[in-house]
């Protein structure tokens, strides 16, 4: 095996972990709505979307587990569950927007809108990846994200252009989340290294389309576009918000209390 080949494999492994972590964190957050949603249909909808995100995390981690068999390193001989449940905060590589708390319903749906819009373009691009496994995962995921977007788009319009109360809550959510959106378009070193071979997606290139579409929806929902005068990043380097540890303590409880427990 050549040096470049093994470096590429290591980078692809880390890339898969990062994409898996993004999905797992949001899946875990959405699952917090289970039995707490404002109405039964929403409870079912959010739980279903949560399962889609946890399912895609599983697909990315499965690929990571297979790559680790060849690359060795910290993930060697680890299972998907080990990767999902037994790391500490600094070892998770998810972007910050995915770990933010659920807030109120407006906050949750605003994040979904931001993320679903982004994911549709991201997974469209990843489905053309030169890595056939990543391309297959992306093609599967894309169908689901398109479906998710239909709902988050509809809620954004209904709540944004709804009552005074729902409008205020939506505007607050947009303002509070906006500073976490630039990180979606930031390339990590690993992603940059995988770009020339056509394995990773050029995030920065997705910004203009996303910005145009999200602006259009905000406008349609009578919401103001935030000035974008602050931003926070660090997730891909393992530097997380204060919410991350609390999320992990709940998510990891079962595996920590009963090590090796299987479903």
């Amino acid at each position, binding site marked *: 095996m050549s040096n470049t080949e093994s470096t590429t494999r290591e980078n692809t492994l880390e890339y898969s972990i990062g994409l898996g972590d993004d999905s797992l964190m949001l*899946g875990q957050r959405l699952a917090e709505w289970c039995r707490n949603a404002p109405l039964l249909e*929403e409870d079912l909808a959010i739980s279903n979307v949560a399962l889609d995100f946890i399912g895609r995390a599983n697909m990315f981690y499965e690929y990571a587990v297979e790559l680790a068999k060849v690359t060795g390193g910290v993930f060697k001989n680890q299972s998907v569950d080990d990767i999902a449940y037994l790391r500490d905060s600094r070892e998770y590589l998810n972007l910050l927007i995915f770990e933010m708390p659920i807030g109120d319903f407006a906050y949750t749906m605003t994040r979904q809108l931001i993320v679903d819009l982004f994911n549709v373009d991201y997974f469209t691009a990843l489905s053309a990846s030169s890595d056939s496994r990543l391309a297959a995962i992306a093609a*599967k995921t894309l169908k*689901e994200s398109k479906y998710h977007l239909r709902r988050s788009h509809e809620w954004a319009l209904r709540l944004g252009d709804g009552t005074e109360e729902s409008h205020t809550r939506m505007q607050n959510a947009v303002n509070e989340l906006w500073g976490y959106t630039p990180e979606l378009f930031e390339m990590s070193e690993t992603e940059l290294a995988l770009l020339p071979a056509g394995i990773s997606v050029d995030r920065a290139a997705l910004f203009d389309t996303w910005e145009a579409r999200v602006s259009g929806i905000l406008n349609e929902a009578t919401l103001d576009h935030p000035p974008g005068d602050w931003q926070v990043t660090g997730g891909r380097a393992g530097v997380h918000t204060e919410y991350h540890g609390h999320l992990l303590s709940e998510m990891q409880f079962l595996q920590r209390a009963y090590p090796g427990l299987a479903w």
Partner: protein
Amino acid sequence: MALLPVTTHDQLIRSKARENSLCPQIWALLDTVTDPEIPVISIWDLGVLQDVIEQASRVEVVITPTYSGCPAMREIEQDICKTLKRAGYSHVEVTTRLSPAWSTDWMSKQGKQQLMDFGIAPPTPTWQVRKVICPQCASTDNSLISEFGSTACKALYKCNDCLEAFDYFKCI
């Protein structure tokens, strides 16, 4: 205008795999494996079963998951193993094929009828305008209650004629 029966390329590959298979008896056995959430439809009719390969004493069953987070997939895997082991196949492996991604277009005509009889409105072909038929009274005057229903694969509708709520198998 009558609609021509359209078979997608992916669907054609699936049916060829079954027709040309050297182990039709295994396919037949697998027809008894159903979706645990919708026990009237077999994994073949649902479009999940892709291929069966028998090599010496080893049987490989290839499946494509419906939704990434569908908890039924794991159960289906276990049911495949159980069914084949009961029939005397000791070495069974279930592999997952992600690409091409599963589509409701892979569902058989028989499968769609079984859904209808069970009380679930079958999916519209993806190339057609969505047409939802109430499984109780066959009315097409329906309204959407929620894009998401009791499982990942279904949406919730209400019939405006007989007023019954019913599940619609989402088309993806």
